[in-house]
Protein backbone atom coordinates (compact mmCIF):
# COMPACT_ATOMS: atom_id res chain seq x y z
CA UNK A 1 0.00 0.00 0.00
CA UNK A 2 1.06 3.60 -0.63
CA UNK A 3 0.77 6.71 1.55
CA UNK A 4 0.30 10.27 0.38
CA UNK A 5 1.07 12.78 3.12
CA UNK A 6 0.01 16.41 2.79
CA UNK A 7 0.51 19.31 5.16
CA UNK A 8 -2.39 21.74 5.41
CA UNK A 9 -1.29 24.38 7.89
CA UNK A 10 -0.50 22.48 11.07
CA UNK A 11 -2.74 19.55 10.08
CA UNK A 12 -1.23 16.46 8.45
CA UNK A 13 -3.48 14.61 6.01
CA UNK A 14 -2.47 11.01 5.42
CA UNK A 15 -4.08 9.21 2.48
CA UNK A 16 -3.38 5.48 2.41
CA UNK A 17 -4.02 3.84 -0.96
CA UNK A 18 -4.67 0.11 -1.32
CA UNK A 19 -5.23 -2.68 1.19
CA UNK A 20 -4.30 -2.35 4.85
CA UNK A 21 -3.78 -5.99 5.77
CA UNK A 22 -1.48 -8.04 7.99
CA UNK A 23 1.53 -7.36 5.74
CA UNK A 24 0.89 -3.64 5.28
CA UNK A 25 -0.07 -2.83 8.89
CA UNK A 26 3.45 -2.53 10.44
CA UNK A 27 4.63 -0.13 7.70
CA UNK A 28 1.48 1.96 8.03
CA UNK A 29 1.90 2.12 11.78
CA UNK A 30 5.53 3.24 11.48
CA UNK A 31 4.62 5.89 8.92
CA UNK A 32 1.96 7.29 11.24
CA UNK A 33 4.43 7.38 14.15
CA UNK A 34 6.76 9.43 11.94
CA UNK A 35 3.92 11.82 11.12
CA UNK A 36 3.13 12.21 14.82
CA UNK A 37 6.71 12.97 15.76
CA UNK A 38 6.84 15.36 12.76
CA UNK A 39 9.94 16.61 10.91
CA UNK A 40 10.90 19.08 13.62
CA UNK A 41 7.38 20.21 14.51
CA UNK A 42 4.53 18.11 15.83
CA UNK A 43 1.25 18.49 13.89
CA UNK A 44 -1.79 19.72 15.81
CA UNK A 45 -4.02 17.18 14.11
CA UNK A 46 -3.66 14.13 11.89
CA UNK A 47 -6.46 13.18 9.51
CA UNK A 48 -6.59 9.88 7.67
CA UNK A 49 -8.26 10.32 4.29
CA UNK A 50 -9.78 6.95 3.38
CA UNK A 51 -10.69 7.77 -0.25
CA UNK A 52 -8.15 5.26 -1.58
CA UNK A 53 -8.30 2.78 1.30
CA UNK A 54 -9.89 -0.35 -0.14
CA UNK A 55 -9.71 -2.81 2.71
CA UNK A 56 -8.82 -2.94 6.41
CA UNK A 57 -8.14 -6.28 8.13
CA UNK A 58 -8.09 -6.82 11.89
CA UNK A 59 -4.33 -6.22 11.88
CA UNK A 60 -5.06 -2.94 10.07
CA UNK A 61 -7.59 -1.99 12.74
CA UNK A 62 -4.94 -2.62 15.36
CA UNK A 63 -2.62 -0.17 13.57
CA UNK A 64 -5.40 2.46 13.83
CA UNK A 65 -5.94 1.66 17.51
CA UNK A 66 -2.23 2.03 18.32
CA UNK A 67 -2.08 5.24 16.27
CA UNK A 68 -5.06 6.67 18.14
CA UNK A 69 -3.33 5.91 21.44
CA UNK A 70 -0.04 7.48 20.31
CA UNK A 71 -1.90 10.58 19.13
CA UNK A 72 -3.70 10.86 22.45
CA UNK A 73 -0.43 10.61 24.37
CA UNK A 74 1.14 13.29 22.16
CA UNK A 75 -1.91 15.58 22.44
CA UNK A 76 -2.62 15.35 18.70
CA UNK A 77 -6.22 15.10 17.53
CA UNK A 78 -6.73 12.08 15.30
CA UNK A 79 -9.65 11.47 12.96
CA UNK A 80 -10.71 9.55 9.86
CA UNK A 81 -12.64 10.81 6.87
CA UNK A 82 -14.03 9.80 3.49
CA UNK A 83 -14.05 6.06 4.23
CA UNK A 84 -15.27 3.72 1.49
CA UNK A 85 -18.54 1.98 2.48
CA UNK A 86 -16.92 -1.43 3.13
CA UNK A 87 -14.18 0.09 5.29
CA UNK A 88 -16.71 2.26 7.10
CA UNK A 89 -18.68 -0.86 7.92
CA UNK A 90 -15.57 -2.50 9.40
CA UNK A 91 -15.05 0.53 11.66
CA UNK A 92 -18.68 0.49 12.74
CA UNK A 93 -18.87 -3.28 13.31
CA UNK A 94 -15.68 -3.37 15.34
CA UNK A 95 -16.82 -0.41 17.44
CA UNK A 96 -13.75 1.59 16.38
CA UNK A 97 -15.90 4.43 15.06
CA UNK A 98 -16.80 5.09 18.71
CA UNK A 99 -13.23 5.69 19.81
CA UNK A 100 -11.90 7.33 16.62
CA UNK A 101 -13.99 10.13 15.09
CA UNK A 102 -15.09 9.38 11.52
CA UNK A 103 -16.06 12.29 9.25
CA UNK A 104 -17.89 12.18 5.93
CA UNK A 105 -15.21 14.08 4.01
CA UNK A 106 -11.91 15.88 4.35
CA UNK A 107 -13.48 19.35 4.54
CA UNK A 108 -15.58 18.52 7.59
CA UNK A 109 -12.62 16.72 9.22
CA UNK A 110 -10.46 19.81 8.68
CA UNK A 111 -13.21 22.10 9.98
CA UNK A 112 -13.53 19.91 13.07
CA UNK A 113 -9.76 19.95 13.61
CA UNK A 114 -9.70 23.78 13.38
CA UNK A 115 -12.73 24.12 15.63
CA UNK A 116 -11.10 21.89 18.20
CA UNK A 117 -8.28 24.37 18.57
CA UNK A 118 -10.39 27.55 18.60
Amino acid at each position, binding site marked *: MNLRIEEIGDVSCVAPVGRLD*FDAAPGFQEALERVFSGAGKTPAAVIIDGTGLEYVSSAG*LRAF*LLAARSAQRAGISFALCALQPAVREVFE*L*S*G*FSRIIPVHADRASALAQAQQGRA
Partner: protein
Amino acid sequence: MDHPSVSPRARTAGSGLTVPLPVRRLTELLRAKTRGFAQLLIESRGPYARAFENLIVALIIFSVASIGVESIPGLPEWAMRTLRVAEIVTVAIFTFEYLLRVVAARNKLGFVFSYQGMVDLLAIAPFYLVGFDARWLRALRLLRLLRVLKLQTHFLETVVEERTRELAEKNAALEKAQAQLKAELEVARSLQLAILPAAFPARSGCEAAARMIPATTMGGDFYDYIELPDGEIGLVIADVSGHGVPAAFFMAVARTNLREQAVHHNDPGECLAQTNDALCAQNPLELFVTVFYCVLDPKSGVLRYANGGHNPPYIRRAAGIVETLRGAGGLVLGAMPGSRYPTHTVQLLAGDRLVLFTDGVTEAFNPAEELYGAQRLADEVHVHGGGTPAALVERICQSVTNFAGTAPQSDDITLTVLTWGAP
Protein backbone atom coordinates in the same frame (compact mmCIF):
# COMPACT_ATOMS: atom_id res chain seq x y z
CA MET B 1 40.59 -42.39 -4.86
CA ASP B 2 43.73 -42.73 -6.82
CA HIS B 3 43.88 -46.45 -7.36
CA PRO B 4 41.34 -47.01 -10.11
CA SER B 5 43.29 -44.72 -12.45
CA VAL B 6 46.63 -46.10 -11.39
CA SER B 7 46.18 -49.84 -11.41
CA PRO B 8 45.31 -50.25 -15.13
CA ARG B 9 48.48 -48.37 -16.03
CA ALA B 10 50.47 -50.61 -13.67
CA ARG B 11 48.99 -53.68 -15.35
CA THR B 12 49.97 -52.53 -18.86
CA ALA B 13 53.40 -51.73 -17.60
CA GLY B 14 53.64 -55.18 -16.13
CA SER B 15 52.46 -57.05 -19.22
CA GLY B 16 53.70 -54.87 -22.15
CA LEU B 17 56.95 -53.21 -21.15
CA THR B 18 58.96 -55.52 -19.00
CA VAL B 19 59.77 -53.37 -16.02
CA PRO B 20 61.99 -55.24 -13.55
CA LEU B 21 60.17 -56.29 -10.40
CA PRO B 22 62.42 -54.42 -7.91
CA VAL B 23 61.84 -51.15 -9.84
CA ARG B 24 58.09 -51.71 -9.82
CA ARG B 25 58.20 -52.48 -6.11
CA LEU B 26 60.21 -49.33 -5.51
CA THR B 27 57.83 -47.07 -7.47
CA GLU B 28 54.86 -48.63 -5.71
CA LEU B 29 56.51 -48.05 -2.37
CA LEU B 30 57.30 -44.44 -3.28
CA ARG B 31 53.78 -43.89 -4.52
CA ALA B 32 52.36 -45.25 -1.27
CA LYS B 33 54.76 -43.14 0.80
CA THR B 34 53.97 -39.95 -1.15
CA ARG B 35 50.27 -40.60 -0.74
CA GLY B 36 50.79 -41.10 2.97
CA PHE B 37 52.67 -37.80 3.24
CA ALA B 38 50.11 -36.00 1.09
CA GLN B 39 47.39 -37.26 3.39
CA LEU B 40 49.25 -36.36 6.56
CA LEU B 41 50.68 -32.97 5.54
CA ILE B 42 48.05 -31.57 3.15
CA GLU B 43 44.69 -33.33 3.15
CA SER B 44 44.26 -34.09 6.85
CA ARG B 45 44.30 -30.40 7.89
CA GLY B 46 45.48 -31.74 11.24
CA PRO B 47 48.33 -30.50 13.46
CA TYR B 48 51.04 -31.88 11.12
CA ALA B 49 49.44 -30.19 8.13
CA ARG B 50 49.35 -26.90 10.05
CA ALA B 51 52.98 -27.26 11.09
CA PHE B 52 53.98 -28.03 7.49
CA GLU B 53 52.01 -25.00 6.29
CA ASN B 54 53.81 -22.78 8.82
CA LEU B 55 57.18 -24.19 7.77
CA ILE B 56 56.42 -23.35 4.12
CA VAL B 57 55.37 -19.81 4.98
CA ALA B 58 58.51 -19.31 7.08
CA LEU B 59 60.68 -20.64 4.24
CA ILE B 60 59.04 -18.30 1.73
CA ILE B 61 59.74 -15.30 3.93
CA PHE B 62 63.29 -16.47 4.58
CA SER B 63 64.01 -17.12 0.91
CA VAL B 64 62.62 -13.78 -0.27
CA ALA B 65 64.68 -12.04 2.41
CA SER B 66 67.80 -13.96 1.42
CA ILE B 67 67.42 -12.82 -2.20
CA GLY B 68 67.71 -9.31 -0.88
CA VAL B 69 70.76 -10.17 1.25
CA GLU B 70 72.43 -11.87 -1.74
CA SER B 71 72.32 -8.68 -3.76
CA ILE B 72 74.37 -6.77 -1.17
CA PRO B 73 77.80 -6.23 -2.84
CA GLY B 74 80.94 -7.57 -1.17
CA LEU B 75 79.27 -10.28 0.89
CA PRO B 76 81.85 -12.66 2.44
CA GLU B 77 82.30 -16.05 0.75
CA TRP B 78 81.03 -18.06 3.80
CA ALA B 79 77.79 -16.07 3.78
CA MET B 80 77.29 -16.68 0.05
CA ARG B 81 77.90 -20.39 0.59
CA THR B 82 75.42 -20.56 3.47
CA LEU B 83 72.81 -18.83 1.38
CA ARG B 84 73.37 -21.22 -1.54
CA VAL B 85 72.96 -24.23 0.75
CA ALA B 86 69.85 -22.68 2.24
CA GLU B 87 68.50 -22.12 -1.28
CA ILE B 88 69.04 -25.76 -2.17
CA VAL B 89 67.27 -26.92 0.98
CA THR B 90 64.41 -24.46 0.39
CA VAL B 91 63.90 -25.55 -3.19
CA ALA B 92 64.04 -29.20 -2.14
CA ILE B 93 61.27 -28.62 0.40
CA PHE B 94 59.23 -26.53 -2.08
CA THR B 95 59.62 -29.31 -4.64
CA PHE B 96 58.51 -31.87 -2.10
CA GLU B 97 55.50 -29.67 -1.24
CA TYR B 98 54.65 -29.21 -4.92
CA LEU B 99 54.69 -32.99 -5.49
CA LEU B 100 52.53 -33.58 -2.42
CA ARG B 101 50.02 -31.01 -3.67
CA VAL B 102 49.86 -32.68 -7.07
CA VAL B 103 49.30 -36.04 -5.41
CA ALA B 104 46.70 -34.64 -3.02
CA ALA B 105 44.75 -32.84 -5.75
CA ARG B 106 41.66 -34.63 -7.03
CA ASN B 107 42.17 -33.11 -10.43
CA LYS B 108 45.94 -33.27 -10.88
CA LEU B 109 46.14 -31.50 -14.23
CA GLY B 110 43.73 -28.91 -12.91
CA PHE B 111 46.06 -28.19 -10.02
CA VAL B 112 49.14 -27.96 -12.24
CA PHE B 113 47.45 -25.30 -14.38
CA SER B 114 45.72 -23.55 -11.50
CA TYR B 115 47.01 -20.19 -10.21
CA GLN B 116 48.55 -21.80 -7.15
CA GLY B 117 50.01 -24.64 -9.21
CA MET B 118 51.70 -22.19 -11.59
CA VAL B 119 53.02 -20.01 -8.78
CA ASP B 120 54.39 -23.06 -6.94
CA LEU B 121 56.10 -24.21 -10.13
CA LEU B 122 57.54 -20.75 -10.82
CA ALA B 123 58.96 -20.73 -7.29
CA ILE B 124 61.13 -23.76 -7.98
CA ALA B 125 61.58 -23.79 -11.77
CA PRO B 126 64.33 -21.10 -11.94
CA PHE B 127 66.56 -23.19 -9.65
CA TYR B 128 66.37 -26.20 -11.97
CA LEU B 129 66.68 -24.16 -15.19
CA VAL B 130 69.81 -22.35 -14.03
CA GLY B 131 71.60 -25.67 -14.12
CA PHE B 132 71.19 -25.81 -17.92
CA ASP B 133 72.29 -22.32 -18.89
CA ALA B 134 74.25 -20.10 -16.53
CA ARG B 135 73.78 -17.00 -18.68
CA TRP B 136 70.16 -16.83 -17.55
CA LEU B 137 71.28 -16.92 -13.98
CA ARG B 138 70.75 -13.26 -13.12
CA ALA B 139 67.38 -12.91 -14.82
CA LEU B 140 66.12 -16.18 -13.42
CA ARG B 141 67.30 -15.27 -9.96
CA LEU B 142 65.01 -12.28 -10.07
CA LEU B 143 62.20 -14.65 -10.96
CA ARG B 144 62.64 -16.14 -7.51
CA LEU B 145 61.07 -12.96 -6.21
CA LEU B 146 57.84 -14.41 -7.54
CA ARG B 147 57.90 -16.50 -4.37
CA VAL B 148 56.14 -13.53 -2.82
CA LEU B 149 53.12 -14.68 -4.84
CA LYS B 150 53.45 -18.06 -3.19
CA LEU B 151 53.10 -16.34 0.14
CA GLN B 152 49.92 -14.69 -1.07
CA THR B 153 48.37 -17.98 -2.24
CA HIS B 154 49.13 -19.53 1.13
CA PHE B 155 47.49 -16.79 3.12
CA LEU B 156 44.60 -16.57 0.72
CA GLU B 157 44.04 -20.28 1.05
CA THR B 158 44.12 -20.12 4.83
CA VAL B 159 41.70 -17.21 4.98
CA VAL B 160 39.28 -18.82 2.52
CA GLU B 161 39.44 -22.08 4.41
CA GLU B 162 38.76 -20.38 7.72
CA ARG B 163 35.85 -18.37 6.34
CA THR B 164 34.38 -21.45 4.68
CA ARG B 165 34.59 -23.38 7.92
CA GLU B 166 33.04 -20.52 9.93
CA LEU B 167 30.26 -20.21 7.37
CA ALA B 168 29.57 -23.94 7.46
CA GLU B 169 29.45 -23.88 11.26
CA LYS B 170 27.09 -20.91 11.27
CA ASN B 171 24.86 -22.52 8.66
CA ALA B 172 24.67 -25.72 10.66
CA ALA B 173 23.77 -23.76 13.81
CA LEU B 174 21.11 -21.81 11.91
CA GLU B 175 19.61 -24.95 10.42
CA LYS B 176 19.50 -26.55 13.83
CA ALA B 177 17.83 -23.50 15.37
CA GLN B 178 15.32 -23.35 12.54
CA ALA B 179 14.45 -27.02 12.86
CA GLN B 180 13.97 -26.55 16.59
CA LEU B 181 11.76 -23.51 16.05
CA LYS B 182 9.70 -25.39 13.49
CA ALA B 183 9.25 -28.33 15.85
CA GLU B 184 8.20 -25.98 18.65
CA LEU B 185 5.72 -24.22 16.36
CA GLU B 186 4.27 -27.59 15.42
CA VAL B 187 3.79 -28.44 19.09
CA ALA B 188 2.23 -25.03 19.73
CA ARG B 189 -0.10 -25.53 16.78
CA SER B 190 -1.29 -28.91 17.97
CA LEU B 191 -1.80 -27.47 21.45
CA GLN B 192 -3.81 -24.65 19.96
CA LEU B 193 -5.98 -26.96 17.89
CA ALA B 194 -6.48 -29.12 20.98
CA ILE B 195 -8.00 -26.09 22.74
CA LEU B 196 -10.84 -26.02 20.20
CA PRO B 197 -13.74 -28.16 21.39
CA ALA B 198 -13.85 -31.57 19.72
CA ALA B 199 -17.61 -32.03 19.92
CA PHE B 200 -20.76 -30.11 20.69
CA PRO B 201 -22.30 -30.94 24.11
CA ALA B 202 -24.90 -33.66 23.66
CA ARG B 203 -28.37 -32.04 23.84
CA SER B 204 -31.53 -33.41 22.34
CA GLY B 205 -32.65 -31.29 19.43
CA CYS B 206 -29.36 -29.42 19.11
CA GLU B 207 -26.62 -30.18 16.67
CA ALA B 208 -23.53 -28.20 15.74
CA ALA B 209 -20.44 -28.43 13.54
CA ALA B 210 -17.40 -26.19 13.26
CA ARG B 211 -14.19 -25.77 11.35
CA MET B 212 -11.11 -23.61 11.64
CA ILE B 213 -8.58 -23.28 8.81
CA PRO B 214 -5.59 -21.20 9.97
CA ALA B 215 -3.89 -18.89 7.45
CA THR B 216 -0.42 -19.46 8.90
CA THR B 217 0.62 -22.30 11.19
CA MET B 218 -0.79 -20.44 14.18
CA GLY B 219 -4.25 -18.93 13.89
CA GLY B 220 -5.88 -16.11 15.82
CA ASP B 221 -9.45 -17.36 15.34
CA PHE B 222 -11.29 -19.62 17.73
CA TYR B 223 -14.72 -20.99 18.51
CA ASP B 224 -15.98 -22.57 21.70
CA TYR B 225 -18.98 -24.35 23.19
CA ILE B 226 -19.45 -23.77 26.91
CA GLU B 227 -21.76 -25.89 29.08
CA LEU B 228 -23.36 -23.47 31.54
CA PRO B 229 -24.58 -24.42 35.03
CA ASP B 230 -28.33 -24.18 34.33
CA GLY B 231 -28.33 -26.41 31.26
CA GLU B 232 -27.78 -23.57 28.78
CA ILE B 233 -25.06 -23.63 26.16
CA GLY B 234 -22.68 -20.77 25.42
CA LEU B 235 -21.42 -20.38 21.85
CA VAL B 236 -18.38 -18.30 21.01
CA ILE B 237 -16.74 -17.22 17.80
CA ALA B 238 -13.77 -14.89 17.93
CA ASP B 239 -10.98 -13.39 15.85
CA VAL B 240 -7.76 -12.01 17.34
CA SER B 241 -6.12 -9.17 15.39
CA GLY B 242 -3.24 -10.47 13.29
CA HIS B 243 -1.97 -14.02 13.36
CA GLY B 244 1.09 -16.04 14.25
CA VAL B 245 2.41 -16.80 17.72
CA PRO B 246 1.31 -13.53 19.43
CA ALA B 247 -2.27 -13.92 18.16
CA ALA B 248 -2.32 -17.57 19.25
CA PHE B 249 -1.23 -16.66 22.76
CA PHE B 250 -3.81 -13.92 23.01
CA MET B 251 -6.41 -16.33 21.71
CA ALA B 252 -5.62 -18.80 24.49
CA VAL B 253 -5.83 -16.02 27.11
CA ALA B 254 -9.10 -14.68 25.67
CA ARG B 255 -10.70 -18.10 25.48
CA THR B 256 -9.77 -18.97 29.08
CA ASN B 257 -11.04 -15.63 30.38
CA LEU B 258 -14.30 -15.89 28.48
CA ARG B 259 -14.93 -19.43 29.76
CA GLU B 260 -14.35 -18.30 33.30
CA GLN B 261 -16.63 -15.25 33.00
CA ALA B 262 -19.33 -17.23 31.16
CA VAL B 263 -19.83 -19.48 34.16
CA HIS B 264 -20.21 -16.51 36.51
CA HIS B 265 -22.19 -14.13 34.31
CA ASN B 266 -25.38 -15.43 32.81
CA ASP B 267 -25.88 -12.28 30.77
CA PRO B 268 -23.81 -12.36 27.53
CA GLY B 269 -23.22 -8.59 27.49
CA GLU B 270 -22.00 -8.62 31.10
CA CYS B 271 -19.82 -11.62 30.32
CA LEU B 272 -18.13 -9.74 27.45
CA ALA B 273 -17.69 -6.59 29.57
CA GLN B 274 -15.96 -8.59 32.32
CA THR B 275 -13.81 -10.47 29.80
CA ASN B 276 -12.85 -7.17 28.15
CA ASP B 277 -11.69 -5.67 31.45
CA ALA B 278 -9.69 -8.79 32.25
CA LEU B 279 -8.05 -8.76 28.80
CA CYS B 280 -7.21 -5.05 28.99
CA ALA B 281 -5.39 -5.73 32.24
CA GLN B 282 -3.13 -8.39 30.65
CA ASN B 283 -2.45 -7.17 27.15
CA PRO B 284 1.21 -6.17 26.75
CA LEU B 285 1.14 -6.60 22.95
CA GLU B 286 -1.92 -4.37 22.58
CA LEU B 287 -3.79 -6.97 20.58
CA PHE B 288 -7.56 -7.21 20.59
CA VAL B 289 -10.18 -9.78 19.76
CA THR B 290 -13.60 -9.52 18.13
CA VAL B 291 -16.07 -11.81 19.92
CA PHE B 292 -19.62 -12.85 19.25
CA TYR B 293 -21.02 -14.61 22.29
CA CYS B 294 -24.51 -16.12 22.60
CA VAL B 295 -26.30 -18.29 25.14
CA LEU B 296 -28.90 -20.79 23.92
CA ASP B 297 -31.60 -22.22 26.10
CA PRO B 298 -32.06 -25.64 24.46
CA LYS B 299 -35.48 -26.08 26.00
CA SER B 300 -37.10 -22.88 24.73
CA GLY B 301 -34.89 -21.95 21.76
CA VAL B 302 -34.31 -18.48 23.18
CA LEU B 303 -30.96 -17.11 22.10
CA ARG B 304 -29.39 -14.19 23.99
CA TYR B 305 -26.35 -12.59 22.42
CA ALA B 306 -23.85 -9.76 22.65
CA ASN B 307 -21.35 -8.61 20.06
CA GLY B 308 -17.85 -7.27 20.68
CA GLY B 309 -16.96 -5.91 17.26
CA HIS B 310 -17.53 -9.18 15.42
CA ASN B 311 -19.23 -9.85 12.08
CA PRO B 312 -22.92 -10.34 12.85
CA PRO B 313 -23.90 -14.00 12.37
CA TYR B 314 -26.71 -15.25 10.14
CA ILE B 315 -29.89 -17.07 11.04
CA ARG B 316 -31.35 -19.23 8.33
CA ARG B 317 -35.01 -19.66 9.06
CA ALA B 318 -36.60 -23.00 8.27
CA ALA B 319 -38.14 -21.50 5.12
CA GLY B 320 -34.67 -20.63 3.80
CA ILE B 321 -34.75 -16.89 4.48
CA VAL B 322 -31.41 -15.60 5.81
CA GLU B 323 -31.46 -12.90 8.49
CA THR B 324 -28.51 -11.01 9.95
CA LEU B 325 -28.24 -10.88 13.75
CA ARG B 326 -27.89 -7.10 13.93
CA GLY B 327 -28.39 -5.19 17.13
CA ALA B 328 -25.95 -2.68 18.52
CA GLY B 329 -22.64 -4.19 19.52
CA GLY B 330 -19.67 -2.91 21.48
CA LEU B 331 -15.98 -2.30 20.91
CA VAL B 332 -13.61 -5.17 20.20
CA LEU B 333 -12.31 -6.78 23.42
CA GLY B 334 -8.93 -5.81 24.83
CA ALA B 335 -8.88 -2.31 23.32
CA MET B 336 -10.36 -0.17 26.08
CA PRO B 337 -11.36 -1.00 29.65
CA GLY B 338 -14.93 -0.20 30.69
CA SER B 339 -16.50 -0.94 27.29
CA ARG B 340 -20.18 -1.94 27.43
CA TYR B 341 -21.94 -4.64 25.40
CA PRO B 342 -25.72 -4.62 25.09
CA THR B 343 -27.49 -7.98 25.22
CA HIS B 344 -30.14 -8.81 22.59
CA THR B 345 -32.60 -11.68 22.39
CA VAL B 346 -33.91 -13.68 19.44
CA GLN B 347 -36.30 -16.64 19.38
CA LEU B 348 -35.11 -19.62 17.36
CA LEU B 349 -37.78 -21.70 15.66
CA ALA B 350 -37.60 -25.43 14.97
CA GLY B 351 -35.21 -26.09 12.12
CA ASP B 352 -33.50 -22.70 12.23
CA ARG B 353 -29.75 -22.62 11.60
CA LEU B 354 -27.38 -20.23 13.29
CA VAL B 355 -24.26 -19.51 11.20
CA LEU B 356 -21.30 -17.95 13.04
CA PHE B 357 -18.22 -16.99 11.02
CA THR B 358 -15.07 -14.87 11.07
CA ASP B 359 -14.03 -12.34 8.43
CA GLY B 360 -11.64 -14.91 6.97
CA VAL B 361 -14.74 -16.29 5.21
CA THR B 362 -16.21 -13.06 3.83
CA GLU B 363 -12.85 -11.41 3.23
CA ALA B 364 -11.22 -14.22 1.29
CA PHE B 365 -9.69 -12.78 -1.88
CA ASN B 366 -9.52 -14.43 -5.29
CA PRO B 367 -6.57 -13.94 -7.69
CA ALA B 368 -8.39 -10.93 -9.21
CA GLU B 369 -8.36 -9.36 -5.71
CA GLU B 370 -12.15 -9.53 -5.36
CA LEU B 371 -13.71 -10.26 -1.97
CA TYR B 372 -15.79 -13.36 -1.34
CA GLY B 373 -18.20 -11.04 0.44
CA ALA B 374 -21.20 -11.38 2.72
CA GLN B 375 -23.60 -11.87 -0.20
CA ARG B 376 -21.93 -15.06 -1.47
CA LEU B 377 -21.98 -16.46 2.05
CA ALA B 378 -25.65 -15.55 2.54
CA ASP B 379 -26.47 -17.19 -0.82
CA GLU B 380 -24.68 -20.42 0.18
CA VAL B 381 -26.54 -20.46 3.51
CA HIS B 382 -29.83 -19.78 1.75
CA VAL B 383 -29.43 -22.48 -0.93
CA HIS B 384 -27.54 -25.20 0.94
CA GLY B 385 -28.49 -24.61 4.58
CA GLY B 386 -31.22 -27.24 4.69
CA GLY B 387 -28.95 -30.21 5.48
CA THR B 388 -26.89 -31.04 8.54
CA PRO B 389 -24.63 -28.42 10.13
CA ALA B 390 -21.58 -30.49 9.12
CA ALA B 391 -22.73 -30.50 5.48
CA LEU B 392 -23.20 -26.70 5.49
CA VAL B 393 -19.80 -26.10 7.09
CA GLU B 394 -18.20 -28.32 4.45
CA ARG B 395 -20.16 -26.65 1.67
CA ILE B 396 -19.12 -23.10 2.70
CA CYS B 397 -15.45 -24.05 3.19
CA GLN B 398 -15.48 -25.64 -0.27
CA SER B 399 -17.13 -22.57 -1.79
CA VAL B 400 -14.56 -20.19 -0.22
CA THR B 401 -11.64 -22.41 -1.26
CA ASN B 402 -12.94 -22.64 -4.83
CA PHE B 403 -13.45 -18.89 -4.96
CA ALA B 404 -9.95 -18.10 -3.63
CA GLY B 405 -8.36 -20.47 -6.16
CA THR B 406 -4.61 -19.88 -6.28
CA ALA B 407 -4.74 -16.70 -4.17
CA PRO B 408 -2.96 -17.19 -0.83
CA GLN B 409 -5.19 -17.45 2.26
CA SER B 410 -4.63 -14.16 4.06
CA ASP B 411 -6.71 -14.79 7.18
CA ASP B 412 -7.96 -17.67 9.33
CA ILE B 413 -11.27 -19.12 8.16
CA THR B 414 -13.61 -20.17 10.97
CA LEU B 415 -17.21 -21.31 10.85
CA THR B 416 -19.74 -22.72 13.30
CA VAL B 417 -23.23 -23.88 12.35
CA LEU B 418 -25.90 -24.80 14.91
CA THR B 419 -29.40 -26.16 14.38
CA TRP B 420 -32.07 -26.04 17.02
CA GLY B 421 -35.24 -28.11 17.07
CA ALA B 422 -36.07 -30.93 14.68
CA PRO B 423 -34.84 -30.17 11.17
